[in-house]
């Protein structure tokens, strides 16, 4: 008895009212799908323009907070644009961005990059010219930012420049009755004398096979300590005297003064607990010990050694912030608006100070009053800058590939399986084969 009723219900013909209802619903549905694709100017929008900023800065102690403070200030200064945090930790960052770029589009409106990673992304067309930002902010860029140019136009703005140097704990030095090293041999002696395994260590530099990026990143400076470079143009120089000597010194430090088998994070904690006396780090790393050190006195005791090595050079790395070429034009405009605001001298200075940075990207980017408070920065300032392209030559585009050639041989050397000369001789042959393949 119920079946005919059901059939009647399902077979009921559409009346005019139902038809109009369905038509209206379909129109609303279609419009709701299409609306986000229609780009209204900012002033016509009801809501704020939401921008996602991809960076690893959010996870960095000190730097993340400084950026949040600047974003907050920007939000208070205007009401049209809202910046959201996005990104990954430093270790995963470039791989994640690369995967996104390979799949067609980076999933952010603004993104920061490493110098070598930036070059790849710029070449692949993921960045846009920021000349208008520079003009609007009215600043003069440092000469070092020339590497961020494509067809003469800057495609990334330096947002943090770091320099390699030797940071030491003044209190530990004084307790041991030693002073800043005078030359490289003296440095090894001091580091050895400061070592009392397993309680105290004289030196740390990354050396774990499970941290090949950190190893290669820091190792580059060890050749610079002998005024060397790793490649000249397309020619690798892995078995040059400077590189060989640098690695011999690195190995001697590893044998005599380093906490062997210790990862970078643990070493930073140990340095913050005054259990490691010296650390080869970039200037930006100092922020780690300002806020998170186990020994609260550490930050006040930090000093960077005046260059005691031949040439006195330190690798200087520029990390640009970019606007995504594949985001909507309105978002690009909003992102540039934010960068123009950020690059105004006063805002830039505030960011630099919050991040505890010492190398400004623009003229007048650092206040002398602020610089005077940084007792640890003298050595970094006294070091002569050498850029990544100068150190790696044309391999700057193949930094990680070259690192993958070098690091397994460094591991052989640290394990005592091969002499420095033999291992680096093999590395040189492999690097030449790499050059033949990638520069063909």
């Amino acid at each position, binding site marked *: 008895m119920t079946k005919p009723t059901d059939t009647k219900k399902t077979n009921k013909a559409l009346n005019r009212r139902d038809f109009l209802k369905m038509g209206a619903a379909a129109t609303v549905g279609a419009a709701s799908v299409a609306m986000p694709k229609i780009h209204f100017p900012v002033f016509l929008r009801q809501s704020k323009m939401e921008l996602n900023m991809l960076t690893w800065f959010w996870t960095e102690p000190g730097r993340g907070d400084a950026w949040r403070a600047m974003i907050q200030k920007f939000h208070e200064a205007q009401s049209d644009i809202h910046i959201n945090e996005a990104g990954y930790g430093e270790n995963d960052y470039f791989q994640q961005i690369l995967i996104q770029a390979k799949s067609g589009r980076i999933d952010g409106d603004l993104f920061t990059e490493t110098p070598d990673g930036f070059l790849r992304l710029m070449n692949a067309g993921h960045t846009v010219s920021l000349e208008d930002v520079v003009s609007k902010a009215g600043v003069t860029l440092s000469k070092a930012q020339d590497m961020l140019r494509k067809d003469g136009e800057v495609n990334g703005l330096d947002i943090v420049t770091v320099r390699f140097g030797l940071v030491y704990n003044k209190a530990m030095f004084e307790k041991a009755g030693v002073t800043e090293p005078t030359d490289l041999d003296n440095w090894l002696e001091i580091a050895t004398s400061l070592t009392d395994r397993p309680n105290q260590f004289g030196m740390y530099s990354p050396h774990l096979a499970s941290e090949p990026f950190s190893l290669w990143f820091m190792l580059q400076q060890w050749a610079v300590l002998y005024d060397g470079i790793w490649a000249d143009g397309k020619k690798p120089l892995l078995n040059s005297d400077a590189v060989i000597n640098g690695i011999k010194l690195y190995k001697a430090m590893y044998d005599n003064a380093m906490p062997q088998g210790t990862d970078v994070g643990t070493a930073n904690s140990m340095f913050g607990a005054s259990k490691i006396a010296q650390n080869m780090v970039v200037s930006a790393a100092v922020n780690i010990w300002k806020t998170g050190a186990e020994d609260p006195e550490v930050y006040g005791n930090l000093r960077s050694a005046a260059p005691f090595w031949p040439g006195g050079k330190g690798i200087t790395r520029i990390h640009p912030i970019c606007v995504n070429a594949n985001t909507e034009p309105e978002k690009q405009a909003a992102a540039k608006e934010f960068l123009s605001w950020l690059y105004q001298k006063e805002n830039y200075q505030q960011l630099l100070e919050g991040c505890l940075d010492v190398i400004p990207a623009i003229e007048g980017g650092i206040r002398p009053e602020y610089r005077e408070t940084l007792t640890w920065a003298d050595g970094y300032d006294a070091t002569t800058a050498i850029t990544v392209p100068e150190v790696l030559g044309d391999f700057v585009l193949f930094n990680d*590939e070259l690192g993958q050639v070098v690091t397994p041989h460094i591991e052989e050397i640290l394990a005592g399986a091969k002499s420095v000369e033999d291992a680096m001789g093999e590395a040189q042959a492999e690097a030449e084969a790499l050059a033949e393949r990638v520069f063909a």
Partner: protein
Amino acid sequence: MAAQAAINKSASGRRRDYLPYMLALPIILYETIFILIPIVQQLVSSFTSDMFGISAVKWVGLANYDRMLSDKYFWNSMRVTLSFMGGTVIVAVGAGLIAALLMNQNFRGRSVARAIMTLPWAFPDLPTVLIFMWIFNPSFGVMNLFVRWILPIEQNPKWMMDINLALPLVIMIAAWKAFPFYGLVTLSVLQSIPSELYEAAKVDGATRLQSFRYVTLPEIIPTLMLMGVLACIFAFRQFALIFLFTGGGPARTTETLVVAVYKAAFNSFDFSYGATIGMAGFVAVFAITLLFAYLQRRQEAEAAS
């Protein structure tokens, strides 16, 4: 009536014929989208040159395979993979068998012991690696104390930084994590062996060793063989433990094929070469899977006869 019934039967039979396909459709779609298409893409990619941000993708034919076959590090990865696979299978399945035999005994606290035995399997990879990195830390690791008690050495071993020790350590950690699974499976088989068989063997005067040899072993061998093949596949695919513990080092001594694929694709950004090594790995896993299928069929045939 009979004709109508036949038509109805035929119609419902046709409907039932579609049912298996409908049921299989979701998994077929899933496998096609997430397995088959990526494999085909990877195969196509292996015939191209694709260096991100350096040059446009171009067809290079068999050049990547030519490079791979003359790459000594590819063959090193193959050797390391087979060593890791062999070592893990022997240690994990062997330890699983021993654990299962122990857990099959009647003793007080057996349930608690079984629960504890499964813990390593339940541990995520990252904490496992961190724990073992500390245990085997050359400067602070507790293992240094044990070794110094046993051996007359003055310097701590370098453990995962030692070219000769890194692979055995990785095998040990992988086996430590995997053996509970094999132990539990073996235990379930052991518990399904009728007790009458042991009683009969006892009546015949068999010792415990003979009971194991002539009763237990024949019953569990088919399972052990299948687990061995499964262990091979699991070991072949192992990435996280190795990458986190040694990163494939030192000096590539723990660089298995999957680690090599990752390094080529995501460290060197040479996706095509990564895809090429990946295809070599695919062929190897496919061969193991065929072996697995063959063993399974043979086992089913033996059971049927």
